[in-house]
């Protein structure tokens, strides 16, 4: 059974600002979906290796050399807000006593 607290915790992890109504609806729907997913527990997988990829490929390497890439203007063209050559974002850290500025 998934709780309101679970939903709030997961929404925070997923960076989703849900409304109260959305939280309750999400709780009900996830509960139903997870109950169905729980049928997987019936299978004995104690001796089974996990599959992460259908076609196992490991260590695909390339030479470490300069290649053409997007220019700065093209890379920034879709930015909601830019400042010169940078993406502009709201402040991340509160300024406080003793912190480097």
């Amino acid at each position, binding site marked *: 059974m998934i709780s309101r607290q679970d939903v709030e915790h997961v929404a925070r992890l*997923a960076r989703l600002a849900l409304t109260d109504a*959305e939280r309750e609806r*999400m709780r009900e729907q996830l509960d139903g979906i997870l109950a169905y997913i729980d049928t997987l*527990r019936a299978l004995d997988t104690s001796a089974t*290796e*996990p599959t*992460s990829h259908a076609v196992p*490929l490991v260590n*695909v390497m390339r030479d470490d050399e300069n290649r053409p890439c997007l220019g700065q203007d093209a890379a920034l063209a879709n930015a909601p807000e830019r400042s010169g050559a940078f993406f502009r974002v709201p402040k991340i850290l509160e300024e406080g006593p003793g912190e480097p500025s």
Partner: protein
Amino acid sequence: MDAHAAIHELTAAFAKGAALPLAVTEDYLARIGALDAKVGAYLTVTRDEALAAARASEARYRAGTPLSPLDGAPLAIKDVFCTAGVRTTCGSKILETFVPPYDATIVERLRKAGAVLLGKTNMDEFAMGSSTEHSAFHLTRNPWDLARVPGGSSGGSAAAVAGGLAAGGFGTDTGGSVRQPAAFCGIVGFKPTYGRVSRYGLIAFASSLDHVSPFALDIHDTALLLGAVAGHDPLDATSIDVPVPDYAAVLGAGVKGLRIGVPDEYFEAGLDPEIDRAVRAAVDVLRDLGATVEPVSLPTTSYGVATYYVVAPAEASSNLARYDGVKYGLRVPGKDLIDMVSRTRAAGFGAEVKRRIMLGTYALSAGYHDAYYGQAQKVRTLVRQDFERAFERVDVLAAPTTPGVAFRHGEKADPLAMYMNDVYTVPASMTGLPAVSVPCGFSDAGLPIGMQLIGRTLDEATLLRAAHAYEQATPWRARHPSLA
């Protein structure tokens, strides 16, 4: 030319001078202008670019130098593929204004083959859905019955091809998102082996499951479309570096001696009796053509949907973390960075995308990872082992593509009911095996039915050969919906 002419028929006519690429593209654009308000297949029609590409194609035919058997073919591309300078929304408000600075590899390869891109097609937001009803923009209607869904998530491309609004197209198949709409719309949808076609420039949903897949009116066109985009791409580390056969050259070899397995578990309770009958009759046709048929068992089939709805949302929750209001797309202001990101995602994502992000985040979160994601990855191994055992005895599996025919808009409002629609398509997704949906008849109400053929890893050629033999022996290709 006929609105339902195949690409190989169009380009053969171009080569003979019996039809002209510019006039054909103008015809398609005119039909889109007249009929797409009914169907809703397209999100963006690239009229000027299409006309320019068609003019260039016409000049090449005049000079006797067409680039490929796709030169001048008017195609519809799902709005999940990046197109340089052309808005690419992924069916989402969060990317409503996104204009990619580069082409996806498949788009680049199609341009190099001379194809004419008519526009970008509607889809379930971030390819999450089975009906195209989760598009943030508008509904798409099934050309066979406008009250019904075209399937999804690649419903726009499927409806365009079935409705004569494109001669062929591309979608992506993560859990069935090309095979299922192909079945619902009465056309061919072909999911190649995982890694056969580059995913570079494809907006990611579930990276271990996303497959670039063509839609076509027949198998010959399927072979041409697949051949044009298949093959290694250094820009996609999961793309497989093996030679690509000439797929069109294998057609016509027939099915004599081919061993076909019919999995018992795909014909159990929940399958529409009309589909059961149609698929069994299709298997009989293959037997009459010289294939041998035997029953096989894939015991974990009924666990496929539960497994898929852990793995795909888990991967999606990680992939969609990039939509943070910083680099592209929507931004909703907030009091600090985290508040801005959380508000942006709340406003930009629709209900189904939020549901999957929540489900995936939960399945990966501390305390639940082993019980959900770990267990699902292990069951994924069991599903793979089922197929490995079956392919020791047979060359191809024949089964239904979907448990039912196209449903009505709004009919599957419960998320779990929608997910159950993927029961026959997710196993080949999770194993990366090539699989095709080919038209195999109609219900009494006149709705298309699809047969699914599943093959061995990288053995697309055998699937195309079997599907072609079946298609040539049956009349379904000649039937088309009427939109006028």
